[in-house]
């Protein structure tokens, strides 16, 4: 091997001699050198850049920038060559689109452009008002039901320690009406674990005499209105 051999090789590879095309080893040598020069890097050329480059619409600076990217990425260089060949083939084989296909494409896009069928518009306003009204009624009924509820005390239930709820930690938990001690008495709330006899209730084991119905029919009396509906009255429970 001599330096002259290598010089001759490079001259041949880059077209310095006329007989390079006839050299059967040329294809193999270029393939070998191209593979060794390939670092396998990938870059993406966007369509705008590609189109501008191929139409000659890039200025000198942008063209240099693109050359830099192409020199680093064989994949980008292949993409460019492919795009160029594709545009050439398109120009040579240009044909008119079927009229029916164009018409149907336009027809499909028309309704979407004139009356977009978004779900918001397709649901009428009067339906929304109905939904709001129904939700309001449901909320009022829920408040009424909750306010009438009392917590029964089950004297036979086993005594278990329960976590004391912290109102500050859970402000959104609905508050139920709690029994209140009569005014004037200092009745501290009982803690779990300390069993006391419930006030105003008979023991479970006690026997109470059943009142017999009166044999004389009396005029039915109207029950007094509940405390929460009579203004100024004090309800026993809040």
């Amino acid at each position, binding site marked *: *091997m001599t*330096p002259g051999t*290598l*010089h001759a*090789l490079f001259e041949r*590879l*880059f*077209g*310095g001699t006329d007989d390079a*095309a006839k050299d059967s080893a040329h*294809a193999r040598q*270029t*393939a*070998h*050198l*191209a*593979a*060794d*020069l*390939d670092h396998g890097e*990938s870059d993406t*050329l966007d*369509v*705008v850049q*590609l*189109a501008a480059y191929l*139409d*000659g619409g*890039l200025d*000198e600076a942008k063209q*240099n920038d693109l*050359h830099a990217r*192409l*020199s*680093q*990425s064989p*994949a*980008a*260089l*292949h*993409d460019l*060559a*492919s*795009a*160029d*060949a594709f*545009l*050439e083939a*398109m*120009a*040579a*084989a*240009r*044909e008119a*689109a079927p009229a029916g*296909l164009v018409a149907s*494409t336009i027809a499909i*896009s*028309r309704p979407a*452009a004139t009356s977009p069928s978004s779900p918001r518009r397709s649901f009428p306003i009067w339906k929304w008002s109905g939904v709001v009204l129904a939700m309001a009624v449901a909320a009022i009924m829920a408040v009424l039901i909750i306010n009438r509820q009392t917590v029964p005390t089950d004297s036979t239930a086993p005594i278990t320690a329960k976590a004391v709820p912290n109102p500050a930690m859970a402000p959104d938990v609905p508050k139920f009406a709690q029994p209140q001690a009569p005014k004037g008495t200092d009745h501290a709330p009982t803690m779990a674990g300390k069993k006391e006899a419930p006030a105003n209730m008979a023991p479970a084991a006690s026997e109470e005499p059943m009142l017999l119905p009166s044999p004389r029919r009396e005029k039915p009396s109207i029950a007094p209105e509940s405390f929460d509906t009579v203004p100024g009255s004090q309800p026993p429970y809040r």
Partner: protein
Amino acid sequence: MIEIVSGVMTQQDAFGRATDKAPMGARLGLIKRAISIMGADLAQDRDFVRSVLEAKPQAWERLVRRIADTVWTACRLLCGDDAEAGTAFSDVMEALRADGFRRLRPYNGSSRIETFVALVTRDVLAERLLQLFQAHSASDGWTAFERFFGADINRIINRRLPGADRADLRQDAYQDICVALIADDYRRLKAYRGIGSFTGFVLHMVDRLLIDFIRSTMPLRQQRAEAAAITTAAPEWGDIPSDQPSPEDTLLEREDDRLLSLASEVLREAAAALSETERLYLHIALGSGEPIPAREVARQMQRPVEEVYKLKQRVMARLRDTLDRHPAVKMWKASV
């Protein structure tokens, strides 16, 4: 002939390239392209697309009528038949409209609408193809794959293996590449991870497979061709030569490999010192199995031919300089 006016190439330049620098004969498409570039009003094209983005009345309809032939031609080239092209046409139009014309938004009037839309169409159809391979029905996508990439694969093979006497070799190369792509349930194609374009990824892989084919097959081919020539000359059964290479052939092949390895070292060293444009020239020149005419390089680089000649001279000077300073060469000089 070609001038750069204010940094932007004029349309007359493009026409000059198409007529003066392209090889005569099969350059009809190039000339047509150059003519259409000459007649383009890019500012008007930009306003045209802007009116679509601003949802002006009838703007989309006008755009569809303007680009219909471009999209259709692209679909016909990349799809199999009219029926498939029709489906692809609808998909492309839908893709252009999708997400508030997302694909049209980047258009800035730096190219003709037709060029831009043709390349968008190519991208949309490549994405459809990619979805086929990412799904479990990769085998269904192979036919579509060949239709899409067939022309490109053949172009790359023709470039690396030129010459009328290599027609059989090119066919073998095509088959070899296809087998490699299909192997292991399309492992190579499924290896795409979204870095770079799918088209670039596939074609780069095709080129690497082709290089492997050339490096592994061509010496054997030459030996077999020589063997076949001898067999034809002496058809008697007793004189059939062995397929094994002779000691001289083995020595020559080893010497060739050593030479190529050293040339690779010199080339890499020289390439590191080249400018990016010069390095691009090097890559383009090494992408062909025969010397590429300067006008062809000029077209790929979008530069005047005169500049390409200067590029070539600079690259050759750098290679010679690197070669002379290379340690292996210095050792040889010292030994003389």
